[in-house]
């Protein structure tokens, strides 16, 4: 007798995508899911993250069309995705494609990507094609029990400049299942900034994967802010395929309650003369748990690479926990690489010092946490993104 996999159980609850998936992509995805099951502790990449809770979620197919939403950027052109689906009757944005004869066949060798293909709720292609900087914000707004399976394809054409804001906002008490695949091509001499803000409902499972390809002389930055949610997993994969590239990855997370956050990042330096810098910092309260795994590969002929990576955590409770694993694999001999990871408590002496000047214990701790996360926010050039995240950090502490 064939036993049902956890994916089979999940699939029975999901509605197959009505979007025109290519046969090739469909067949490949089916093949992956046929043999796959939910990852377990035995799988090194999932050792500290269990997704079993997804099968306890209930889903509701009815679509609410939200009338109000909170954009982050005033200047960005905006596209609203409401409970997973593209909101109807929106103004066309130049370079943004949302209706399809057939979806792109791009896919990854990953079970959740395969799931994303077969149950895709929205497919969005964004093309930046001008030297004049453009800014686009995708606002994913959702309430309880919704399923968000967007596929996002981003192209930053040669010599173009763009900023993309991925603004995920779930109502506070909601439990949703978000599963996102994002493919990003950063072409020669182009500059792309991505800001991803995950402000999910406290019961939400949010699994995201980014697959980034950088061509020569390009610059790519991604800032990931994981502010709330039951489980957040980000897999950021960056292939640096050309020389003279710059890559910046920043992340900040604020975890409390039973939240679990997992950032798995990979930067693969295939060629010489590139620079990458990664900084992830977060605070963990209550029984929340955090996982960080940052891999940097420097391939054999990739000389003159400067790669820096750092992860720092502050535990605000005795019951929170952190598993942090920085990994460097270097096969070239003329490189400058460093990595570091720290986990500790707030400096009690500093808390006392601030209290002795009249600050309450709460205000003192908040000030120290803000200062700690401030190092990441300083890297964010977008003022509205920065102040949005700062406000959310403030709310996180006042709640």
């Amino acid at each position: 007798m064939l036993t049902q996999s956890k994916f089979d159980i999940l699939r029975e609850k999901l509605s197959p995508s009505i979007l025109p998936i290519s046969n090739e992509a469909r067949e490949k995805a089916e093949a992956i899911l046929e043999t796959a099951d939910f990852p377990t502790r035995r799988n090194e990449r999932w050792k500290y993250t269990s997704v079993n809770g997804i099968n306890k979620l209930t889903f509701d197919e009815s679509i609410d069309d939200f009338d109000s939403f909170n954009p982050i950027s005033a200047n960005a052109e905006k596209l609203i995705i409401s409970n997973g689906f593209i909101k109807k009757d929106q103004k066309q944005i130049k370079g943004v494609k949302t209706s399809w004869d057939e979806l792109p066949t791009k896919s990854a060798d990953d079970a959740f990507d395969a799931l994303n293909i077969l149950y895709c709720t929205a497919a969005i292609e964004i093309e930046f094609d001008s030297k004049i900087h453009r800014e686009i914000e995708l606002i994913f707004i959702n309430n309880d029990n919704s399923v968000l399976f967007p596929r996002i394809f981003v192209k930053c054409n040669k010599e173009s400049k763009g900023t993309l804001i991925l603004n995920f906002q779930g109502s506070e008490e909601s439990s949703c299942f978000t599963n996102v695949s994002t493919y990003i091509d950063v072409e020669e001499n182009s500059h792309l900034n991505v800001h991803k803000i995950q402000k999910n409902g406290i019961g939400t499972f949010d699994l995201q994967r980014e697959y980034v390809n950088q061509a020569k002389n390009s610059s790519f930055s991604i800032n990931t802010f994981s502010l709330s949610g039951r489980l957040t997993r980000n897999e950021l994969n960056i292939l640096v395929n050309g020389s003279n590239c710059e890559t910046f990855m920043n992340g900040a997370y604020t975890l409390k309650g039973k939240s679990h956050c997992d950032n798995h990042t990979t930067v693969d330096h295939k060629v010489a003369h590139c620079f990458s810098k990664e900084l992830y910092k977060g605070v963990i309260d209550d029984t929340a748990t955090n996982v960080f795994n940052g891999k940097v590969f420097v391939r054999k002929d990739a000389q003159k690479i400067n790669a820096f990576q750092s992860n720092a955590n502050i535990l605000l409770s005795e019951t929170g926990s952190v598993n942090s694993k920085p990994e460097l694999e270097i096969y070239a001999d003329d490189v400058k690489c460093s990595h570091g990871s720290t986990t500790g408590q707030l400096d009690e002496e500093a808390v006392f010092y601030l209290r002795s000047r009249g600050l309450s214990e709460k205000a003192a701790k908040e000030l120290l946490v803000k200062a700690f996360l401030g190092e990441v926010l300083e890297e964010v050039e977008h003022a509205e993104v920065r102040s949005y995240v700062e406000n959310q950090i403030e709310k996180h502490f006042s709640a």
Partner: protein
Amino acid sequence: MIEIKNLHATIEGKEILKGLSLNVKAGEIHAIMGPNGAGKSTLASILAGREEYEITNGEVSFDGDDLLEMSTEERARAGLFLAFQYPVEIPGVSNVNFLRTAINEIRDANGENPISAKEFMALVREKSKIVELDSSLASRSVNEGFSGGEKKRNEIFQMAMLNPKLAVLDETDSGLDIDALRIVAKGVNSLKSPENASIVITHYQRLLDYIVPDYVHVLYDGRIVKTGDKNLALELEEKGYDWIKAESQVG
């Protein structure tokens, strides 16, 4: 202002203060001197509300209130200020930002409106001059990368900004060169008024050349064993502490 009566305190089971009494009135400057291990810093720590110490006996009344029942921040808001012997470096928290938060928390506790940005900046300019603190230091992270002298001057700057009723200076002179000492003393003297008071804790007489105390107390083995005027400090400088030790053992 502050009345300490028969204060006994222990840390990790070891008794440090053994019946210390001290009465400081508004307008006065008291110096507390004593050899190493006498309990000088313990006294400062207890007044500021450090929780590692256990009070086994005695009482402290501050402006009529039971100080020992108050949290560290309540003491600060009631007008008590401790200049730390070892000021803490706090990366990423700007000096002025933190002082503004502190001033507003104190104002809020006293039912006053927050300070305006303009008023605050004027205050920063005025008070940083007193301690000859470069205004760029005022906006930098709290004590981060400050020299020893700058840290102590920053303590006095904070004191000037918060304008406390009672300032406790815990070995503020330690590690200072003569110029820094002069500046720190100038800061303390300029804040002197009939409404406030200071307790200056020091190991050496040197600081008292610049800050002239109304009373000098000798703390030894957890108690005040001798009280006099500024001449007592000079006597101690000349003769050391041994005669005090001998005297108190006989007594």
